[in-house]
């Protein structure tokens, strides 16, 4: 239907559009009252810079087009990265920005996710007190979702990637072990496999690997000959192959990681439940992993900051593994869903992304946190709640088959 938009039939004209415009105006006013200035990054972003910032899932789903002068361009798949890029190039710090506009994602046939939808968001860059900024970003999104007319009932979920990062720091051995784990913090299955591969369960090397390790032990020239049995093609050079071969030999000689350490990391990442209880469980773990303590002190301070803002912080649901599907978050993360409308994606969410500012800032890092609301999903959730009261049904009519029982992937949190 030409008049339909994401989650909202008939939202492109007349009363439907007016309702949406009122909603985005209300959200914008809320962000403006918090001191955010309006920002409007370009719709078309340079593909080479931007696509390297996103995980493969978003990268694969970006609409890419070509301009004879500007080269490959991408329709912005979110606002955060373009806003940070704009700020790093032009903005004075500290700064807070508010935006509202469409983003685009290609979807697979049969998917009920929209290819175009609105995001209304706020980004807090360079704040002096990052813990207060975390709490403020959470509170702003909570109020943007919860203060409107007939606001839907919300359920929140929080996480903190600093917990996983701190646990990685407790891994003994060469830095590349920890670097490999950090790189896969967003891919839990791969993370676990890597962690196990450092432990006593690592597999014995096969014949090909044994021959390589022998060649390394025999010296540079035998190693070179071992590689040169094959014609060297492509960009990856002899020195790169030799370097990794030597690393493999070093790794093979390392003592395996203590299984108790592996179990402790897995235990920390499995913590979930109300924040107060989760914090207590993590404190127990920190008795054996003191490196975790600073992250937990920050978590505790954040819970206090949230409580000062009227959030029932002790009961706030926490999951140490939440947020690990979005590749640019590296601290506090949160999302809000509408339990009465389980077919909808999260209505809003956000988190801390300091590392992204380094990648866009040419070495300069800023503390950065932000969040977005999906105004269309918010209105749809409100309608679903009304329908629910009227009809007493579990879901709205016309919900896509199977969607009601299946939460949207975590990747949707911010996006």
């Amino acid at each position, binding site marked *: 239907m030409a008049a339909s938009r994401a989650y909202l039939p008939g939202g492109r004209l007349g009363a439907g559009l007016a309702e949406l415009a009122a909603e985005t105006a209300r959200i914008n006013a809320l962000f403006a009252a918090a001191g955010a200035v309006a920002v409007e990054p370009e719709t078309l972003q340079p593909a080479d810079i931007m696509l390297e910032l996103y*995980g*493969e899932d978003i990268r694969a789903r970006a609409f890419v087009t070509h301009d004879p002068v500007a080269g490959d361009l991408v329709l912005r798949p979110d606002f955060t990265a373009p806003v940070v890029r704009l700020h790093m190039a032009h903005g004075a710090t500290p700064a807070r920005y508010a935006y509202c506009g469409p983003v685009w994602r290609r979807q*697979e046939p049969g998917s009920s996710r929209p290819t175009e939808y609105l995001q209304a968001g706020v980004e807090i860059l360079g704040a002096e007190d990052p813990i207060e900024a975390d709490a403020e970003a959470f509170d702003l999104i909570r109020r943007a979702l919860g203060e409107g007319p007939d606001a839907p009932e919300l359920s929140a979920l929080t996480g903190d990637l600093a917990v996983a990062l701190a646990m990685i720091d407790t891994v003994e051995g060469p830095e590349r072990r920890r670097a490999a784990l950090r790189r896969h913090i967003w891919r839990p299955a791969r993370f676990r496999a890597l962690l196990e591969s450092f432990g006593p369960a690592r597999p014995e090397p096969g014949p090909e690997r044994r021959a390589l390790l022998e060649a390394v032990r025999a010296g540079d020239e035998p190693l070179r000959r071992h590689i040169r049995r094959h014609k060297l*093609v492509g960009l990856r050079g002899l020195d*790169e192959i030799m370097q990794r071969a030597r690393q493999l030999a070093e790794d093979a000689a390392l003592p395996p990681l203590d299984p108790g350490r592996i179990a402790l990391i897995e235990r920390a990442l499995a913590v979930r439940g109300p924040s107060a209880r989760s914090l207590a469980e993590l404190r127990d773990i920190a008795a054996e992993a003191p490196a975790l303590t600073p992250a937990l002190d920050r978590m505790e301070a954040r819970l206090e900051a949230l409580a000062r803002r009227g959030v029932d912080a002790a009961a706030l649901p926490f999951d140490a593994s939440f947020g690990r599907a979005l590749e640019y978050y590296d601290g506090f993360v949160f999302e809000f869903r509408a339990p009465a409308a389980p077919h909808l994606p999260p209505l809003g969410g956000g988190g801390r992304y300091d590392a992204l500012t380094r990648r866009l800032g040419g070495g300069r890092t800023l503390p950065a946190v932000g969040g977005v609301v999906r105004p269309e999903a918010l209105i749809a959730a409100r309608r679903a709640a009304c329908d629910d009261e009227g009809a007493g049904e579990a879901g709205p009519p016309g919900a896509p088959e199977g969607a009601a029982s299946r939460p949207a992937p975590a990747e949707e949190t911010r996006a």
Partner: protein
Amino acid sequence: MTIRLGLPSKGRLRDKTAAWFAERGVTIENAGAEREYAGRVRGVEGVELVLLSAAEIPRELAAGRLHLGVTGEDLVQEKIPDWRRVVTLAAPLGFGHADLIVAVPAAWVDVETMSDLDAVAADFRARHGFSLRVATKYHLLARRFFARHGVADYRLVDSQGATEGVAKNRTAEAIVDITSSGETLRANHLKILADGLILRSQANLCVSRAAPWDAPRRALAERLEGALGVRLLEKASATP
């Protein structure tokens, strides 16, 4: 009222498909010259022949413009994202065998598995300033396979032909492609990763679940089932 049957329009796949049908008493006839993409089906009533590229057959099946079609399982899975919803593989035909695999330069003696490839991708990006490039025309299957193995820091580069040559030409570092004997890979100094088999594919007789299957067409299909010795309908009617 006819059933539309899509068959590959050229090459060995066409010849072998025609032979497979002929063995079952169904003759695929070219209407005119060898190069003309029109034809007829003899030996069974009501089947309209549509000759087109094997790569286009999945799309036509998914759109319901073909009732039946012969094409590779690799193409069905690549071209139709949620293929099980719209297409049933009614019978493997025993030819057109091809393995979809991940291959890297044979000189990468430090890379045996997908896990090695992932580690190398991290080093490669740090050293060269861009992601390791994987050349393929199987974007969907490659992406899913790499995601399942947790590979990061790679980028797919489109390659519609002569994919085995990309490393030598320095336009990509690794490939995802089909191979039957592995000879072309060896000739281009590439090797298959130990856990790099994505899919074992062969030619299949496929049934569209999106095509209109009304009673007269179902009757036609039943007769075709008898001739081919392949169950088409029960599977086709299992549409949710």
